[in-house]
């Protein structure tokens, strides 16, 4: 997963505490007096983000996607269709959906899957659920590990720092896919007997754990750098002189100053996980039947691109929009947090 370790360059945010002098000049000029409003860097970033139309559009897309995913059971109840229901009678003798555009009808808004006869809409929204959950959970796990390791390495100096750096290098060099191929089936056999199917939650947890285990390195490096640059600062010295303990300095003094870049990495990690989770389906170690999954759906649909393009279109379009929205939002977030970066 070497691509995970090379996200777009990310410059450090402005000096903490030394936020830009106030530039906001309300609507005051016409009123004849200049009103100075004090704003924190975070407030400034939020303002910049709000003004960014791309960011707004991406955010709306994502909120809709999350709502749809969360509301999947509602949709299932509304239509009376379970995602695993098979409408084989609506397929012709070759197993292709009967009707226009891949079997789109009043009952099946996005048509049916060829071969199995499942409702594409229901598969899609339930699959979205799986994909989004895996992506968010993996990003959370990776970030937590990354921050913890990064802060430790940056603060500790000396041999511990070297060891952590060495560990990061090792993880970066480790081939992710081969690891996943080797470990996921073995762990499955370890926990489940020949006559038990691994529960979907177990499979998802395994994937999340694998992602988390391999994706913390970038965050860790970033955080380490930040901590090193901050730990010699006057406010840290001041805190130390005032008798603050290491825990206080790390959690209350340093962390609040580095959350912004962490947020950006999370927003960039999520779309990568969505794409990689889809790729796992191609090597049979992703989420297995009968749990609906967006990645696997795309994998299955690719063969039908010529004979039933609608089947390929809907899941393909969904993942395209999702990844695009996340990336654009991540970029916008970075721009707003770091006004010095060129646009």
């Amino acid at each position, binding site marked *: 997963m070497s691509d995970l370790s090379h996200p777009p360059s990310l410059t450090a945010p402005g000096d903490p505490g030394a936020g830009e002098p106030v530039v906001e000049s309300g609507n005051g000029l016409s009123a004849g007096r200049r009103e100075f409003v004090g704003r924190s860097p975070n407030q400034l970033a939020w303002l910049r983000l709000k003004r960014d139309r791309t960011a707004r559009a991406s955010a709306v897309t994502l909120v809709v996607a999350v709502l749809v995913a969360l509301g999947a059971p509602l949709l299932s109840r509304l239509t009376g269709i379970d995602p*695993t*229901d*098979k409408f*084989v*009678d609506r*397929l*012709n*003798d*070759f*197993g*292709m*959906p*009967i*009707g*226009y*555009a*891949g*079997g789109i009808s009043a009952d099946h808004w996005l048509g049916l899957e*060829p*071969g*199995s*006869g499942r409702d594409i809409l229901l598969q899609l929204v339930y699959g979205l659920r799986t994909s989004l959950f895996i992506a968010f959970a993996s990003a959370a796990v990776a970030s937590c590990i990354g921050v913890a390791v990064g802060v430790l390495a940056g603060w500790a100096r000396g041999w511990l720092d070297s060891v952590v750096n060495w560990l990061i290098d090792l993880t970066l060099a480790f081939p992710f896919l081969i690891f996943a191929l080797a470990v996921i089936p073995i762990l499955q056999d370890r926990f489940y*007997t*020949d*006559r*038990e*199917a691994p529960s979907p939650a177990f499979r998802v947890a395994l994937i999340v754990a694998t992602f988390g285990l391999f994706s913390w390195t970038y965050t860790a490096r970033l955080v380490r750098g930040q901590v090193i640059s901050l730990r010699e600062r006057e406010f840290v010295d001041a805190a130390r002189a005032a008798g603050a303990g290491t825990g206080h300095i790390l959690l209350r003094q340093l962390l609040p100053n580095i959350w912004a870049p962490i947020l950006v990495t999370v927003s960039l990690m999520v779309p990568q996980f969505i794409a990689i989770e889809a790729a796992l389906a*191609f090597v*049979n170690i992703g989420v*297995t*039947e*009968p749990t609906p999954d967006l990645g696997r759906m795309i*994998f*299955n649909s*690719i*063969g*039908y*691109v*010529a*004979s*039933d*393009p*609608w089947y390929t279109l809907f899941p393909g379009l969904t993942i395209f929009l999702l990844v695009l929205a996340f990336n654009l939002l991540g970029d916008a977030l970075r721009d707003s947090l770091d006004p010095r970066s060129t646009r």
Partner: protein
Amino acid sequence: MRARTRTLTGVLAAAALVAAGCSPTTDDSGGDDQETRTQSGSISYEAADNQGPAKAVDGATRGGTLTVMQPTDFEHLDPARNYVNVQQVAGGMLYRALNGYKEDGSGKLLLVGDLATNPGKDVNGDCKVWEFTLRDGVKYEDGSPVTSKDVAHGIARSFASNLNEGPHYIQQWLYPGGTYNATYKGPYDGGKPVPDGVETPDDRTVRFTFPQAHCDLPYAAALPTSAPVPAAKDTRAGYDLRPFSSGPYKVKSYQRDVALELDRNPNWDPATDPIRTAYPDTIRMTFGLEQAQIAERLVADGAADQAALSWTDVPPSVLPRTTGAGVADRVVKGPTQYNWVLNINTQRVTDLSVRRALNYAVDKDALLKVLGGQAAGTPATTLMSPTTAGFSKYDLFNAPVTGDKAKVTELLAGKRPKLVLAHSSLELRTQQAEALRKNLTDMGFDIVMKPIDNSSYYDEVGRKDNPYDIYLSGWGSDWPTGSTVIPPVYDGREIVAEGNQNLSYLDEPSVSAEIDRVRNLPAAEQDAGWMALDRKIMEEYAPVVPCYYDATYELHGSKVGNAFLSDAFGIISLNGIYVKQ
């Protein structure tokens, strides 16, 4: 014959996105209903059938290069190791067995003498001593004559433990009881040059003497193990790559996993061959393309592929594109000898009413539609396929093709059996298993899906103590009689620790006794005997759910002439094929 390797691999079709059609997909997919052809297979001793040359095909032209596109290379071409239909058809271009199948595409299948002048003489009329007389004038690629000693050597070497992949009917019959090569281990390393019971009184006669009656010998002699291998040319394991030709073609070049090229054997005399016409000058077999790529290329029918065909089925995703004008007439389809059943592990599922309930429950329509519907097969109700001689259709359960819930509920009587469904992890097989899971769950079973890597699927379910309850498998007869279906698949005495064919592990003395009884019936009564036993097994034990009779759906290019489905092999025959000039 082990289930044909229907390559249901996941494919990344590099197909161009065609604008979505503006016409609706209809229920009529352009394919006419396949009437199940019943093989009118018979053994012909008629001189007209047994005499060369083979009847000329109307409009056929000599010359040209025929291309066969295959996803994977043949595992074995050595006649002693050749047990897969595509290999047998390819091998049939290179070497001639004692007997062979004469077909013309009309469904008429005749077993005639190939190397031999007729399909074998039952010397004493008790099916124990069989004699074959070789044709005059059959020559190898170097011009030397084919002798009966070479046929005997071919059979002898098939006992060698490192050449053990082929069929072992004759071998087992020569040494009944125990493993076929427990006593005689082949002519190598100091072994006898020929096994007991095989004699060559002169250069043109081969005589088999069996301890027991085997009226099926003419069929067994059509398998490639009876092809001649001259001892001087025997390269043992290396023979796989360069069989010494006694047929119309010889190996010109063979690059494993890339291509096999055959050109004419100048010493083959059409007058000695009642089966093959050998019209193309060269036959080129290429390996390595994906199943969908092959199908897309044959649909497109580009200049380079017009004289090409493939023995791999059109995958479901390409099927809808084969019904258009210009493509539909290049489809070769029809039933094969394979029958797919859902095996019920009778060691675990001992309750007969549960096994019967499963027979009412399975939605055969859903299983088929995953694979491409009617192109993949037709729903089955029997153990033997309709291509078996003496087949008569019966349907004990009379359930609708999508299952009969009321009957299932009645038979289960409030129970909810938990069954472990093992399946190959290939994409389409997984989808098929998921269709079955959903179907059986709705019918009142608890189903646990267990994916098994495709390459070890038959090894895993073929273990006697496997932990699974139900699993699909396909089996095809080695020749069109019940004797290569019922005994290998339903005789409990054949069960061993590993590598079983009896996947339901049905071990009933009454079935075994009946098998022995039918085996000893006069040849004319055997077909009906097997059919009656087929029904008896389903009626009394229901060890499997017959799911679908396999069908093949293959494509050839527009310049391929006389491409028809071989009933003996279930794929396009090469025997009368020609390239349009």
